């Protein structure tokens, strides 16, 4: 009964009808539960279309991986597993806070709801920040979709004038400046509602740069680990054996047509295997012909297609994160306005479902793209 009374408190006073209903209940619904269930069915149908939409990209991935598994193995080495794993953790945590936010809205904990929505938003921003580091790093190396692919393994870090990271950060800098300005103006004017909205949003805007910092730390930790060569160089050299200062020969031998250099390299490798003696091991036949061509997959035609798929899948996912951020900001403002109560928490629940779906897709994307040996 108490719920009914609570609902009646919210009723319109100046309502032209002969019946009372709470302000949040639309005319064409009998009860809040009916309203909630209708909305819920609607959001489930929307999520179905989302899954079918993403399945197209998963299908492209499956076909290309089925045809050329070696390309996927080769290219996956360029994706930083550490950054991917951190992003997975961040997104899972944001899912937790989102589920918690739904709980807060169901139990009328308005402060908790605002806090949970703000932390969900912050996690989303950290995710985008880490993503920005990943993308800008790859763009600088020329690891781009097929049409733009310019990666050269002999010169993996070419000098570029374009500061991709700066351009990605630019809109977020404007966002942060705008939110801070909004906070200051509303503080000066003493508008309490605006201050309450702008405070968590300032934290959210800062969190993008927290993500950038996090990504930079992880990325730099990775490059110091593999020293001068860098991760990608290491992979290329993997089969070329550790020969102290044979880098010129290694580079020459990478050309498959140069069979002489290649077989010399193999000979030297075997030589070094036999503890530094200057004679090739007995019984080993060193033929001048190419025994097996080590295919180089880092070309436009092959790696380019992998990176097309990579950018398409993660990019569309990132766009979904951006839309989610938009919806969450809307929820945050409404939560500050105290719109939600145990009879009307539908919007929080619906956005929550959408957010969990975005998380769900990342759960599949992470192992499929980052964890290929």
């Amino acid at each position, binding site marked *: 009964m108490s719920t009914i009374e609570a609902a009646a408190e919210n009723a319109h006073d100046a309502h032209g009808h002969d019946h009372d209903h709470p302000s949040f209940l639309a005319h064409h619904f009998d009860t809040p539960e009916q309203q909630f269930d209708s909305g819920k069915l609607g959001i489930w149908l929307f999520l179905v279309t989302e899954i079918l939409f993403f399945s197209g990209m998963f299908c492209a991935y499956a076909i290309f991986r089925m045809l050329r598994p070696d390309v996927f193995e080769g290219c996956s080495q360029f994706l930083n597993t550490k950054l991917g794993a951190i992003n997975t953790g961040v997104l899972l945590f944001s899912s937790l806070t989102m589920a918690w936010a739904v709980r807060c809205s169901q139990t009328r904990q308005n402060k908790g709801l605002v806090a949970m929505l703000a932390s969900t938003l912050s996690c989303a921003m950290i995710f985008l920040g880490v993503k920005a580091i990943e993308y800008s790093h790859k763009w600088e190396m020329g690891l781009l979709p097929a049409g733009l692919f310019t990666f050269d393994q002999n010169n993996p870090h070419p000098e570029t004038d374009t500061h991709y990271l700066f351009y990605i950060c630019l809109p977020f800098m404007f966002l942060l400046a705008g939110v801070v300005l909004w906070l200051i103006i509303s503080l000066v004017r003493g508008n309490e509602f605006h201050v309450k909205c702008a405070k968590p949003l300032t934290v959210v805007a800062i969190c993008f740069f927290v993500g950038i910092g996090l990504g930079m730390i992880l990325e730099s930790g990775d490059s110091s680990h593999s020293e001068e060569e860098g991760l990608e160089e290491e992979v290329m050299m993997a089969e070329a054996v550790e020969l102290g200062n044979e880098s010129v020969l290694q580079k020459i031998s990478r050309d498959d047509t140069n069979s002489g250099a290649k077989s010399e390299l193999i000979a030297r490798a075997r030589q070094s295997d036999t503890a530094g003696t200057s004679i090739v091991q007995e019984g080993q036949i060193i033929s001048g012909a190419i025994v097996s061509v080590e*295919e180089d997959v880092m070309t436009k035609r092959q790696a380019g297609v992998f990176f097309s798929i990579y950018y398409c899948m993660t990019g569309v996912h990132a766009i979904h994160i951006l839309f989610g951020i938009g919806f969450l900001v809307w929820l945050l403002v409404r939560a500050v306005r105290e719109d939600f109560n145990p009879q009307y928490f539908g919007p929080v629940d619906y956005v929550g479902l959408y957010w969990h779906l975005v998380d769900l897709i990342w759960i599949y994307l992470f192992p499929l793209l980052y964890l290929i*040996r």
Partner: protein
Amino acid sequence: MSEHGQSKDGYDFAHPISIPLMLSVFGALLALTILTVAQASFDIGSLDIVIVMVIATIKAGLVMAFFMHLAYDKPFNVIVFLSSFAFVALFLIFTMGDSKLTSVDFEPKVDDEASEVSEVAVVDTLEQVAATESEQATVEMEETVTE
């Protein structure tokens, strides 16, 4: 559907899930993530894609059942949502089967960059074309002269 007069029906429908349950689901998700990352450093051969997908599906199941409240939702919503996966499976199976039969021929094993041989061939054909054109021109010239 409840009548207007009845009190509690249609108003008390929020079923908040308990905080310990949420936290334990989150813990399980994190543990499974660490497991997927860890298994990548072992060489399990061709099984790894299966293992990775099984772990991802368990994680997805946890998220759907508890974070998305599917375990407590109306059966109809569950059917609607899960049916989408059936259609995705149909889509993938048919497309993959089709491309397995046909696309292999279109996917070159070695990157074919413009080799010297083909360039020579192109030059040859171009010269041939030029030669025939000039022949035709001379024939036409002769024709006009005879006229």
